[in-house]
Structure formats: structure tokens, C-alpha cells
């Protein structure tokens, strides 16, 4: 009950959705905040954090709100400097969890799906409406599957499939890089199982 961001803004039209370079990697930040201003950190990490969320949710307005919320949290309670200090990883992890939390909310999911469908219609990647709906249906099921997944595994999948390297995922999650492979495989298996079950439920 601690939502204080303004109510929804109109979802901006997502036009001219041409390919642009995927920019999934966070900006590594080695120095502590005492040596770098919060604003520098914000400016460097805003893009990756926002883009992660907009891909996860398919809703630019919600993505922006959650991206701002991510930075609010950092601002209010920044991670303590020390061994393993990794503010970029912290931001990415918090953003991932905020996104997953939103996806898990049934009512929110309905809205994302509506927004994502609208966005797809406004900026079709191809001139095949059937293909658009098929893609959006796949995405909808994938989001549902993520929502049902073990949270840690969902977190790992989002980080990996949004393009993070193993060492960055390991740093963000406090794991050994060598543990990412086996954990990822387990997460993928669970995801595939849940996804298939959802397909059967909706068949």
C-alpha cells in the first residue's frame, strides 16, 4: 500500500519501432557513490534500467514509473560501499524484481497485455496482423510463465535473456559465475514446463 507515484499517464504511441541496438548491459560502476554523484549514476544507468522494464512489461508508462522507483530506492537506501559494491547490478536486480512483481499482479498483467497489444498494433514489426497477435500471445504466455516461476529463477532468466553476461548476473545476485550455467538450465527447464502447462490450460 505504498504506492505514491502519480496515476497512469496516457500510454505514448510506440511508433516507428525500427531495430535499434539492444543495450542490455549495465554500466559497470566501480567507484563508490562518494566519488561519483548520484546524478552520474542515474544518467548512466537510466537507459538500461528503463529498457529492461519496458521489454519486461510492454508498457512504457509503467516501465518509466518502475524505473523511477528503482532509482528512488537507491537514493533512499543506497547499497553500502565495500567488497562487491556494484550499484549497477543492484539497480538492475531491483528493476528486475519490480518488473516481476508487477507481472505477478493479475490486474496489472491484464493492463500490460492490453498496452503491449496496442503498442504492437501501432508499430507493427511487419505487415502481418496474424503474426503480431501470435507474437503477443507468445509474450503474454511467457509473462504468465515468469509470474508462476520460482522468483529466483524468474529473476535469473530475465537477467540472462535481457543480455547480461554471467559475471554481471553473478555480481548482481551474489553468486559465483560458475553457478550461473547450472542454475540457468534449471530455470529454463522450469520455464518450459510452466509454459507448456499454460498452453495446455488455454488450449
Amino acid at each position, binding site marked *: *500500500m505504498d504506492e505514491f507515484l502519480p496515476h497512469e499517464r496516457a500510454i505514448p504511441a510506440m511508433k516507428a519501432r525500427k531495430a535499434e541496438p539492444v543495450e542490455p548491459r549495465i554500466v559497470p560502476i566501480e567507484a563508490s557513490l562518494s566519488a561519483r554523484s548520484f546524478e552520474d549514476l542515474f544518467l548512466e544507468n537510466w537507459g538500461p534500467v528503463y529498457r529492461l522494464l519496458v521489454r519486461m512489461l510492454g508498457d512504457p508508462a509503467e516501465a*518509466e514509473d518502475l524505473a523511477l522507483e528503482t532509482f528512488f530506492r537507491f537514493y533512499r537506501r543506497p547499497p553500502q560501499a565495500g567488497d562487491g559494491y556494484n550499484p549497477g547490478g543492484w539497480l538492475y536486480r531491483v528493476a528486475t524484481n519490480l518488473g516481476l512483481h508487477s507481472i505477478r499482479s493479475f490486474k496489472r498483467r491484464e493492463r500490460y497485455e492490453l498496452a503491449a497489444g496496442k503498442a504492437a498494433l501501432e508499430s507493427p514489426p511487419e505487415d502481418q496482423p496474424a503474426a503480431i497477435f501470435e507474437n503477443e500471445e507468445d509474450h503474454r504466455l511467457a509473462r504468465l510463465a515468469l509470474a508462476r516461476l520460482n522468483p529466483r529463477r524468474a529473476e535469473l532468466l530475465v537477467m540472462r535473456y535481457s543480455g547480461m553476461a554471467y559475471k554481471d548476473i553473478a555480481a548482481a545476485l551474489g553468486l559465483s559465475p560458475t553457478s550461473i550455467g547450472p542454475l540457468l538450465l534449471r530455470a529454463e527447464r522450469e520455464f518450459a514446463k510452466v509454459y507448456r502447462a499454460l498452453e495446455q490450460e488455454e488450449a
Partner: protein
Amino acid sequence: MNKHLTEGQLRAALDGELDGANMRHLESCSACRARQDLIRAESQQAARGLSFLASPAPRTAPAAKTALNRFHQRNPTQKEISMFRKIFASPLLRAGLAIVLALAVMLSFPQGRALADQILNLFRVQQVVVVPVDFTGMQQLTGNSTIGKQVSDLISDSVTMQQKPGDPVTATDAAQASQLAGFTVRVPPAMTPSRISVENGAAFTIKVDVAKAQALLNEAGRPDLVLPTSIDGSDVSVTIPASATVAFGTCPDPAAQDNPADLGTTAGRKYPDCIILAEIPTPTVSAPAGLDIAQLAQLGLEFSGMTSDQAAAFTQTVDWTSTLVIPLPKNAATYQQVMVDGVNGTLIQRPADDAPQYALLWVKNGIIYAISSLGTNSQQALDIANSLP
């Protein structure tokens, strides 16, 4: 290397994340490559489903500088609300009431209750009192990393947990919740809860470290507030009993609150119909008889924005032995006394246009109750409270 690769290593190799020696083994081992083909097929199922996570982002992404401006525009409200959140946090018990109680504990010892025993049980909540406080000064401290570290050090050095609260346990009904919580959990008979959960109690001891606390005050720009050296080394023990949370409508999962990303989430917009009824027996506080907590309370009130005279006047009006004191940010909330559940209660409302909220608090038979929700329909909370069996 003759040892075959593990499934995890084979999976990592698909992402080019395998080290050189193991890659060489893979290149020369047909058995490992065959196994990797199977793993590749498995992974591709997930990869297809999750391909949207790597899709091009919309070109309408707000520029970083624009976003930073929005951050600054919203931030004052956020900081104000971070204080208010302590009252309205949801689930109240887990995220907010414990904090409120901890604050109250710090403000709620009797000054002159010196009994023969060195350790006394002093604190029993019988009523709730709201004190409006101007948190502007404290807000300016938000983001001060030096103070943040000092507070963190002070807490980690001073607080010893004897019993940590466990994860909330879901109960099937009020009877089971009562059994788990150790007190009678009241549920309005005409409503069906979406969840009833019980959280174990907690116990911790605070050892007062005057030097560190004073350094904190100094760093915060308030060297005029001088802590009495006589309190140095005093132990204050706090026991918070098990609590119950009864949720109505679609509410956040209490177990998710430990996740750093879930603390203070955007729940307000996600759970517009959520109503939380929290119930907790009064906490117990033990402290050395000579500890002058009223003096500390006055300092705390001054620190949070009251003038010395205001703090002294307020301190004298409160029966610290029985009152849960809730500091509310000025101009961010209104409050009024109401009759509820046969006793006097306090209705706190945040009349914001974008996210109005309310909380109703009262104490009856040694149990603290709080109903909180979004919106302005506080009558709903009164109806629920007055229908409790």
C-alpha cells in the same frame, strides 16, 4: 582433460561462458557435444518464449536527463511519503507497524517510574496518540551517505536480535490464526478474507551507545541536542509478540516483503481494493529503572522538527506508560479521534489527489488494531472495525 562436462558447463558453453580448458574438452569430446545438443534444444524452448526480453526497446524512451528531472520533481513527495509509509505500509504489521512500534518504544518510557527492580516491564499500549511533526529537516538528511552509514553502524552495533521474525505463515481461518498467534484473531464475520497470515514475534535488545548516537546528531547538524551520558551502556529489551494480518481483496504477498525489490513497491496502484486488518498484542519493553526515556523522547521530537518548547510541552501531555505515539508528517496527513469497536480510535488520512490513503488505529483489551487501505472511503474501515466479533 578426460572428465566429461556437467550439464551446467554445457549450458554455459552455449552462451560462450565456458573457460578455455573445458571448451577444448568439448571440442574434442563427441559424447559431451551430443549431450550439449540435447541441452541446446531444451534451452531453445525458453529462448523462444523469452525472446521479447531482448527485443528492441521503443524509441519513445524518455531521455535520461528528462527522466532525471522527473525524478527530482517527484522526489520531495517520495521523501515525505517515506515517513508516512511507516504508518500506511502494507502489510501494516510487517512493513510498517513494527517500525512504528520501534519508534514508539523509543518515545514511550515513563520518566519517573523508578521501581526497586533494575529491570522493569514498562510499556503497555492502551491508546494511540498522533503528533504532527515537520520532517523537513530529516528529509534533508535522506541520501546523506555518511549519516546512513552511521545509522547502519549504530544499529548493527547496538541491536542484538534474540528472536528474528520468521516468514508469515498463512492460516486457513481465524481459529487456526488464533492458535498460531497465541491470541484471539478477530475477523469480521460478514467478509471473506483473501488471506490470513501470522508472523512470529521478535525480540531484540538495544544497548545505548551515547558516543555514537551523539556523533550521529552532530553529523546531522544538531550538536545542540546533547544526549545525557548517564544512559550510556543501558540495555533496553523489546519483545514484539506474534501478529496477525487479515487481508481483503487483492493484496501483496507478505512473504515477498523480504525481497529488496518488494519493499515499498508500487503496490498502491496494483492493489486498489486491498484492505489490511492488522492485529498485534502490545509489545513489552524492559529497561533499567533509571533510564530517562522521556528526556530521550523530547530529544527525538526536537530532532524530528519540534522546537524545544513544543517537544517539552508535548512530552508532558503524554502518559508514556500506555501511549503509542505516532509521529505524522505535517501537511501530509490529517487525523481525528473516532469511536471504534467501543473505544477511542484514531483515523489518519492522507488526502492526496493521486494516492489518497487512510489508516484506522485503536487499542482494545491489550491488542493493537490497524486497518489501512487506499482511497478515501474510511467509513469502510469503521464498518469493518465495528463488525468485529
